[in-house]
């Protein structure tokens, strides 16, 4: 049984797989970080079987009883207490499939594994291992040959010299002793979460695999193990338990969970009207078990579905089983009218006065802010872009930068920006909305800037202002003023200094005014009254 390529390609997005690109029959998909079982084509096949009605219901994990065992020594409890494992037998893998398994392992390390801190996985050639295994700790003088090396070396060398040791060594930096998996002959299989031994390396001739998963709690390690186990089973391996004991560890049951589900609730959430039987079918198409039982559905969730936390997750499975594309959108009735307190009045005024709006980032650079006369104060940690390192404390530097980029465009330039600037008051961050405008052309004057200021504040808003002298960067000495409304300073205005213009490589004269919009709006009554 199978399905045509076109059908498969068309349905992939409805499993939650984003199509990255396609080339003929080859399709690259991106899976969501809640479905690590989709990190190989085996997992995706299981999902497609469901929504294409080829196989529905829960994928059963068939696990042979244990022949071998692994003991856990108490000493690991303080370093990396949890371990689980399983054998996968009787199959070989080609290079392509080995590569897929390695990618899955890497994805699990990055996702639920949190870069191996929470969970680390080792995959071994089981035939190189003499059971029983012992999970214990050893000192840093202990020697073994790590993966990629033929010679044994002490652990402190492995940490200092191998790529994995350098990359993941910090995860064990506080430990004197290191967790280690040893076989019957005291041969090292793995030193989680850093590196496997070269002794158990998997090749394309390996027939039997042993998988270990270590971490800090049973749920994490067993969850990750179950994803690997179902993938290996689907790939063609026979799974076999390994008896595990010691500390809080156990042989992983890899057993499904049961969740009681009310189909009327999912109908309400999804806006559908399905019977209990139809709902049951949808759940099964999502590869969960489901049995209708009186007025409830008993859902059976396989262990590898770590993403299912509760009933709402099953509602989504119902939707996926139903097919998102079959759900017809409905427009709910509009009750009361909506509203906003954002006004476009200032923007209209500025446009009317001939000023064009610009939009700059709140995150600016030290250089631009300093050149524009605004000391860089509030920094962000580890910025990737050198143009985005500090939160702006004023709009003017950005406007100067805009003028600087536009020197080849016909003059005059009249620009304004309306946006948030940042400051600190007693160590706490504050955000205020400002408006600033710049006028740049050969003969621009202070009078023009003041005239514009009066047009906005007085003619349009009725705010009486005074402009007492105020010498401050980046203005020319003796050519700038505070904008005062009564006793409150609401902004400043002036002629940009030659030095500042030179820093921005602008030849033409520039006049500027800027003021705090919130101050005007918040206090408008008191400001107009004075």
């Amino acid at each position: 049984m199978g399905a045509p390529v076109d059908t498969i390609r068309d349905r992939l997005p409805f499993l939650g797989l984003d199509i990255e690109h396609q080339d003929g029959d080859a399709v690259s998909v991106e899976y969501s970080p809640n479905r690590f079982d989709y990190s190989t084509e085996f997992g995706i096949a299981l999902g497609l079987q469901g929504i294409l009605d080829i196989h529905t219901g829960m994928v059963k994990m068939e696990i042979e009883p244990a022949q071998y065992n692994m003991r856990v020594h108490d000493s690991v409890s303080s370093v990396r207490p949890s371990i689980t494992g399983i054998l996968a037998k009787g199959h070989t893998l080609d290079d392509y499939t080995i590569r897929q398994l390695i990618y899955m392992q890497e994805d699990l390390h990055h996702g639920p594994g949190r870069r191996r801190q929470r969970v680390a996985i080792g995959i071994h050639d089981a035939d190189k291992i003499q059971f029983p295994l012992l999970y214990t700790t050893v000192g840093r003088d202990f020697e073994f040959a790590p993966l990629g090396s033929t010679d044994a070396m002490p652990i402190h060398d492995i940490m200092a010299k191998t790529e994995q040791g350098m990359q993941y060594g910090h995860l064990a930096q506080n430990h004197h002793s290191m967790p280690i998996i040893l076989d019957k002959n005291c041969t090292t299989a793995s030193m989680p979460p850093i590196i496997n031994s070269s002794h158990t390396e998997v090749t394309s001739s390996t027939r039997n695999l042993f998988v270990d998963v270590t971490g800090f709690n049973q749920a994490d390690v067993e969850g990750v193990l179950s994803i690997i186990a179902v993938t290996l089973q689907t790939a063609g391996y026979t799974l076999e338990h390994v008896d595990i004991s010691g500390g809080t560890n156990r042989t992983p049951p890899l057993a499904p969970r049961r969740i009681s589900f009310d189909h009327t609730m999912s109908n309400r959430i999804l806006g559908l009207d399905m019977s209990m039987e139809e709902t049951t079918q949808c759940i099964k198409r999502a590869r969960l078990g489901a049995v209708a039982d009186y007025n409830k559905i008993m859902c059976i969730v396989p262990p590898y579905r770590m993403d299912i936390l509760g009933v709402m997750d099953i509602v989504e499975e119902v939707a996926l089983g139903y097919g998102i594309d079959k759900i017809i959108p409905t427009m709910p009735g509009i009750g009361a009218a909506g509203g906003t307190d954002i006004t476009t009045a200032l923007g209209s005024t500025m446009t009317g006065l001939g000023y064009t709006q610009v939009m700059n980032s709140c995150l600016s650079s030290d250089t631009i802010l300093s050149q524009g006369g605004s000391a860089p104060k509030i920094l962000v940690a580890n910025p990737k872009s050198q143009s985005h390192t500090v939160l702006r404390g004023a709009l003017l530097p950005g406007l100067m930068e805009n003028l600087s980029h536009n020197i080849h465009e016909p003059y005059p330039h009249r620009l304004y920006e309306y946006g948030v600037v940042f400051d600190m008051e007693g160590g706490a961050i504050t955000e205020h909305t400002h408006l600033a405008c710049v006028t740049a052309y050969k003969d621009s004057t202070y009078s023009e800037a003041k005239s514009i200021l009066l047009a906005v504040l007085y003619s349009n808003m009725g705010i009486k202002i005074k402009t007492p002298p105020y010498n401050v960067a980046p203005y020319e000495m003796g050519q700038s003023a505070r904008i005062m409304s009564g006793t409150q300073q609401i902004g400043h205005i002036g002629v940009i200094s030659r030095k500042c213009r030179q820093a921005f490589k602008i030849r033409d004269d520039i006049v500027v005014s800027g003021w705090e919009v919130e101050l005007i709006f918040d206090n408008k009554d008191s400001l107009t009254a004075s």
Partner: protein
Amino acid sequence: MDSIYHPLEDAIILHMKINISYTIPEMAKNAGIETDQARRATEWLLQKGDIRQSSPPRQILYLGPEGQRAKKDGLPEQRLMELIRSGMPPDAIRDILKSDWGPAVGICRKNNWIRMDGGRPIIIHYPDVIPDHTTLQLDWDNGVDADRVGRSFSKRPGFVASRMSPASYMLSSGEILKQAIQRQNQDTPRGMNVEADVAASYAARTHPLYDIISEIREIFVTLGFDEIHGSMVQPSFWNFDALFTPQDHPAREMQDTFYVRDVRVDTNPINPKDVAKIHNECWRYVWDYDVATKPVLRTHNTCVTIRHLALTNPQNARIFSLGRVFRNEKPSYKHLVEFHQVEGVVVGPNVSLRDLMGIQREFYNKIGLKRVKFWPTFFPYTEPSLQSMVYNERLGKWVELFGMGIFRPEVTGPLGIKGPVLAWGGGIERIAMMRYQLDDVREFYRNGLDWLRGVPIYR
């Protein structure tokens, strides 16, 4: 249709008389305008056929220094003939004529007026008219048309100087003058060359991205949504913890999120113990309040909407929040460090996923995106979760726009929010890129006047 006359054209016509030719400098002088203006107006009038060229530009001759002397003293050959006739001895004639003796003898012999007899000129035939004498009598002061001067005259060294005379023009008919006089007496505004090139003007305008933001705001208000606002710097609690994002989640790392250094931001948590409990249980770690106090530049606006819901706990609500969000990335043609998102929620006892899809479709429809479909996806704080795919006609492919879902019970429960909450959100720049047909999202923040002054406002 009547022709349109420029004031310069009329100025020229009105200063011309019928059947009189005028050069351009003459017309300019008469009309009191610049020569250059007269030249332009003449071109226009020629095209209209109102004037015609009465004479082309031509060569005009004036008397040179030798010509001037000949005019005063007579032509050398004339003087020679007269002196011979007076019987003066040849030596005396030579003394008088000086350097003219040679050329004069040459001309007279060539015309067979004299013959030489051992250095003595003897008259053969005394001419009635010395041919070039007639030429010499022309009105040289005003210049003589080169056509009227024979080669024998103009070839004499120093006899003539020449210069080019401009073309001259004449009215085509008396009617032209009459119409110009009529136009002169009319009160109506005169026409002008409406097809001429002009200098560029630039309208001041709001930023194109701001226009889209305003449009989106208006659409949500029309759909019954109230706008709410929040700070850009948020405590991690509202940006992450309240939204069920575990504290060790990769999205919270400095690689992806901007943490603001050395500042405090009020955390204002709601039910932090319940939030801690759900994190501890579901994500199996020990939730740390201190981590939740770290100030971040918000990575989405959902922090604003969720806090509003937790504070007000409404039975029914339609809320949206619109503003800047931040991601610690290297900017590229498709990714910005700082961009705009709109996020909305609907609370109500009977709202469903279909309603959520319907609201999205309605929004897209109003913004002009007609082909919409929905795919399942994953977000940590919604379940079920969908993403909308919108067909980009220009690129000929489906592109991902807003994400949406129903807030997880693990989000709403600890915050005391009742009932299902439909939530969605997404970037505005992507929609703006489609509207303005841009391929590089950085264009919006370049603020180049070449672009800002040129973007069409209307679709």
